């Protein structure tokens, strides 16, 4: 039972990180039908920014919760600037071009950012500081739940709730839903779609950066290529849940997280990715639009 709970918790936290990244993929796809392959790199940049910020801030004497939250905020803001810039220089000029063009541009951006970080920060694994303060109140459940997992779940839940409210109740959230449904009509109703798209990239980047900070705290090491596999997994999660659907991305990410964790625990850790992708294949055979996705009827 303890073993099961262990695997369950690790699946839940793994799934939460995937969900934070997958939301960026699914929101961007929902709005401009672009698979933003550079998104995994934003997550990586979030982790590196957090590393640098934590070194500077802790040398200035900041510790504990203050350090954690200011590092997370700096990583989020800095990555959001990257996300915004990537959209501005790599995708916006290609708006209206064939769908392949921005896709290639996204792949190029991904290589560029990876290599840039490799050159700037060396290709080595870098030690990530333990930013999460001790939580004495966790003593009774110490066997099942550690402070890193608590923090990951907390960040994820708060971000999801905030995002849901943002999309449902604010002017910009409503505009996002309108643009996702009919971009021309949104424009004709007076919505500035460039601003909506920029905001989508900013929100996606903030979430990915938080994911990067959390994975750093959890794995205690980061490196320039970490965004690739994480990005692929999160993209898988988004497709699994139905790309374009926000609750779908969260559900898909959790399924993927649990599948990987249980496969690694009960079969073998080398089968982890195999099981994850078998699930993806099965779902795509029987429900190609994904779990929460809506089948698209092509209009003539």
């Amino acid at each position: 039972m303890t073993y099961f709970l262990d695997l369950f918790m690790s699946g839940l936290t793994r799934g939460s990180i995937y969900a934070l990244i997958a939301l960026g993929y699914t929101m961007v796809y929902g709005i401009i039908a672009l698979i933003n392959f550079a998104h995994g790199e934003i997550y990586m940049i979030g982790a590196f920014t957090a590393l640098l910020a934590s070194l500077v801030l802790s040398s200035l004497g900041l510790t504990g919760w203050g350090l954690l939250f200011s590092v997370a905020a700096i990583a989020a803001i800095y990555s959001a600037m990257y996300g915004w810039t990537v959209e501005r220089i790599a995708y916006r000029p290609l708006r209206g071009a064939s769908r392949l063009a921005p896709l290639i541009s996204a792949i190029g951006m991904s290589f560029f950012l990876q290599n840039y970080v490799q050159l700037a920060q060396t290709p080595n694994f870098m030690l990530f500081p333990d930013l999460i303060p001790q939580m004495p109140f966790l003593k009774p459940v110490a066997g099942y739940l550690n402070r890193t997992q608590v923090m990951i779940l907390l960040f994820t839940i708060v971000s999801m709730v905030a995002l849901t409210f943002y999309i449902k109740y604010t002017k910009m959230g409503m505009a996002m839903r309108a643009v996702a449904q009919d971009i021309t009509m949104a424009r004709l109703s007076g919505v500035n779609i460039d601003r909506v798209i920029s905001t989508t990239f900013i929100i996606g980047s903030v979430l990915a950066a938080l994911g990067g900070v959390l994975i750093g705290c959890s794995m205690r090491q980061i490196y320039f290529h970490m965004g690739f596999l994480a990005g692929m997994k999160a993209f898988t999660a988004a497709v699994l849940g139905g790309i374009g659907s926000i609750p779908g991305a969260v559900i898909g990410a959790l399924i993927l997280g649990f599948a990987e964790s249980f496969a690694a625990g009960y079969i073998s850790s080398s089968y982890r990715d195999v099981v994850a992708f078998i699930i993806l294949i099965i779902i795509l055979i029987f429900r190609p639009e994904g779990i929460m996705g809506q089948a698209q009827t092509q209009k003539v």
Partner: protein
Amino acid sequence: MTAATDRPQSAAKTESSDLILSALGMSMVFGGLVALNNVDLSIERDSITALIGPNGSGKTTFFNCVTGIYKPTRGDVILYPAIDLPSISLKGKPADVITHQGLARTFQNIRLFNNLTVLENVLIGRHTRMKAGLWGALTRNKKTRQEEAEAIEFSFELLVTYGLDSMANELAKNLPYGDQRRLEIVRALATEPKVLLLDEPAAGLNISETSALRDLISNIRENEKVSILLIEHDMSLVMTVSKKIYVFDYGRLIAQGPPDEIQRDPKVIKAYLGED
């Protein structure tokens, strides 16, 4: 000479003070197909103008050129926002800017945001009249909240005026067809347009719905200080509501004038019925 300096853009054309919008020499070419050929069309302030013509004569293409969906190959669109304000060229502007300047339209095939509620559809129309940007959205300061509350109030009042308030929280896709048409028009009105362009609003409506639409259009004209340009095939509707009619055929303007003149115009009859 003095007249020319008073109204430089249109002094040669016509009395601009009576006009709200004019399209000058509009042409749209798709590859080798000339969809619109050098069309001049003007809309008088506070009037209902109709645009008719056989299928494929370029009416919707004209709408698309004016509202910024297409970039016209040649020609200009000039808006005269008010008598004492300078005129604005809308040529080549993106659709959201044109909407902001005061043009709003509806579509032949209804294009609502199906998965948004009725009220939210109208709120999207308010977007262009709201100022709060990213900063306001992030901080949710007092000004932003007040602005959003005002937008909801404005939109709900529009729904009340046009009889859709009882369905405000329904998803747009669940509305009956006639109400969807009406909602599309209300959403366009939410942008506070100076010119409202309606593309076949009576398409698919039955006789009683068409008659309700006629009342709706007349009501809008009276309540909203808006000039209307209407594409329509329902001749009884066109002839009763419009002050001036333009007739297109094969992308050209073949006739213009008041309804009784148009009904007798041999070129119009020929375009619709063919020759013996």
